[in-house]
């Protein structure tokens, strides 16, 4: 079935809310407005306002409420209108949700999902365009998922909702309208499993979320030039499926990592470190990272384009890692 990313998320939540009465959706405009990006279309009509809760604009307050509800055995899904606003809830996420199980010596768990779009869309400016996945991945006690396709989005969101832990589920505004084949009926995709999205033998490209689409485009173009790229989507950023990446590295010996977030201390730095640590001997040269620029996101179109990775930058990086740059 051909579905948009938005529809796939809608299906996943709908199926899980039908399945488990403890699951509820909470966030700004998730009910009568149908979600700022229409992900929860039809929810308040089907599940009622007791399970689809519109909140005041208070990220710390309603995220904290959801954490408390999870501590008491409910299964909340928190929608952050964008992950940028999640910064207001960082105290709740980092100091409470991620630590309560550990601090309590395993007495309390926090089974919940916090989801919403990260990364840049079109000229939304510095406060609405951030890729903050590295922040969340840095904190022990949080699983972080960032699917790129409708199929992965549905299967992973269902797993996230069923998970016994806090799962930070990263979407992207520019992905909501993208379409792809989604398997009919019930299915889940395990958290922590990468997927080879394109098989190849010359270079391993690791890319996730929106950057996967960029890498796939680049891969197509490069294949016409006779360069055979293998593309891996980790899908889950923590825990990272290093095995799948390393299996590919053993074959290709060359790695390019693509991420939209800031370069310094970005997630790619960690992925590179992990690859160097376990697969250094298989590498034919240094890993190359394609990243966002270390600047707040500018508004102007030309500057914004310059601040984030594009197809050409990925192509250049692949050629460079092959020594053909």
């Amino acid at each position: 079935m051909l579905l948009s990313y938005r529809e796939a998320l809608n299906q996943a939540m709908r199926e899980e809310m039908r399945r488990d009465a403890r699951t509820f959706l909470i966030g700004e405009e998730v009910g009568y407005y149908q979600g700022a990006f229409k992900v929860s279309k039809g929810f308040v009509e089907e599940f009622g306002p007791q399970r689809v809760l519109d909140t005041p604009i208070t990220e710390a307050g309603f995220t904290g409420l959801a954490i408390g509800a999870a501590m008491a055995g409910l299964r909340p899904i928190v929608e952050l209108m964008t992950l940028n606003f999640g910064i207001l809830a960082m105290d709740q996420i980092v100091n409470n949700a991620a630590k309560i199980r550990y601090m309590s010596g395993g007495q309390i768990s926090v089974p919940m999902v916090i989801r919403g779009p990260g990364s840049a869309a079109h000229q939304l400016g510095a406060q609405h365009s951030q890729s903050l996945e590295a922040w969340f991945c840095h904190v022990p006690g949080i699983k972080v998922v960032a699917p790129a396709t409708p199929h992965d989005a549905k299967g992973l969101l269902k797993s996230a909702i069923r998970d016994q832990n806090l799962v930070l589920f990263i979407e992207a505004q520019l992905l909501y309208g993208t379409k792809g084949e989604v398997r009919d009926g019930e299915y889940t995709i395990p958290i922590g499993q990468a997927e080879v999205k394109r098989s190849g033998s010359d270079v391993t490209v690791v890319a996730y979320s929106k950057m996967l689409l960029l890498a796939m485009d680049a891969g197509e173009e490069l294949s016409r030039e006779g360069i055979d790229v293998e593309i891996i989507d980790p899908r889950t950023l923590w825990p990272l499926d290093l095995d799948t990446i390393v299996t590919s590295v053993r074959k290709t010996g060359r790695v390019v990592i693509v991420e939209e977030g800031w370069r310094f201390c970005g997630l790619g730095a960690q992925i590179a470190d992990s690859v160097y640590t376990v697969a250094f001997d298989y590498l034919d040269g240094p890993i190359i990272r394609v990243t966002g620029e270390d600047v707040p996101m500018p508004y102007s179109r030309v500057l914004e384009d310059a601040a984030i990775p594009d197809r050409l930058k990925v192509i250049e990086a692949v050629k460079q890692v092959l020594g053909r740059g």
Partner: protein
Amino acid sequence: MERTDLLHLYRQMLLIRRFEEKSAEMYALAKIAGFLHLYIGEEAVAVGAIAALRPDDYVISAYRDHGYCLARGSDPRRVMAELFGKATGLCKGKGGSMHLIDCEKRFMGGYAIVGGHIPLATGLAFATKYEQGDGVTVCFFGEGAFPSGQAHEAFNLAALWKLPLVFVCENNRYGMGTPVHRAVALYSDITETARSYGIPAERVDGMDVLAMRSLMEQTVKRVRAGQGPAFIEALTYRFMGHSMADPSHGHYRTKDEVEEHRKRDPLFLLQRTMRDHNLGADADFKQLEHEVNEQVAQAVTFAETSPFPELSALHEDVLVTE
């Protein structure tokens, strides 16, 4: 007034008092480390408030949390073991003084980011309401947390959604060393601000355990009946410093001020009431003193003789592993 009941309240306050004194002693001996915030002087708030609750009600608090935990009925041995960082502690030694948690007693924890646990309380109360239960949640916080943004987001949500939640603002007059009049705009009556959210709010003498319990009983009854949240400002006083690093008086308050408040020691006040009504005599208090000292001594022995956690515990309990 009933003798057994009053003796029980007195015993609970005495247990907290002696437990805290012993904790300070153990801190001086380096058996306890990190931050240690003593509850001495404020016992009537925890004991009075918690006496009005059912076992299935939730309690959550900030980091000065030993009192609530003990008043909730946690085993003092396991509380002391937690302070010692031992494997037999409530949280297997992973929480410490500021993060005591006893799920079985529905004491959902001490939290050490000021104001940060108040939204959690709304969630516990929300869950009860969502599942159509009649339990209530009690959230203790200091007047130092009152101005925090998270507190106000929680007040608004609790009132908006009529959550079964009692906010107990324990006004001990100082947020660390900053007196309330330098931190809260409407400091002379904090309940005024709470009422502006549409939350019924009352003030009580937090040194008087009977007044505290009585107000809590009326309040909890209304909240349990589905009338939405309530707010109590309990006026109290911390006899010791903010933490072990802070002397009881000096830079920000005088010895005279502390002495003045000590005249209204909650243990003394209850003892006086009991004597006045012939509901307690020297022999009773002596007996309780003996029992409680014994209980605290046993807690120390238990903590002393318990093993430290195995190093293998380091990576356990980060996540639920299915």
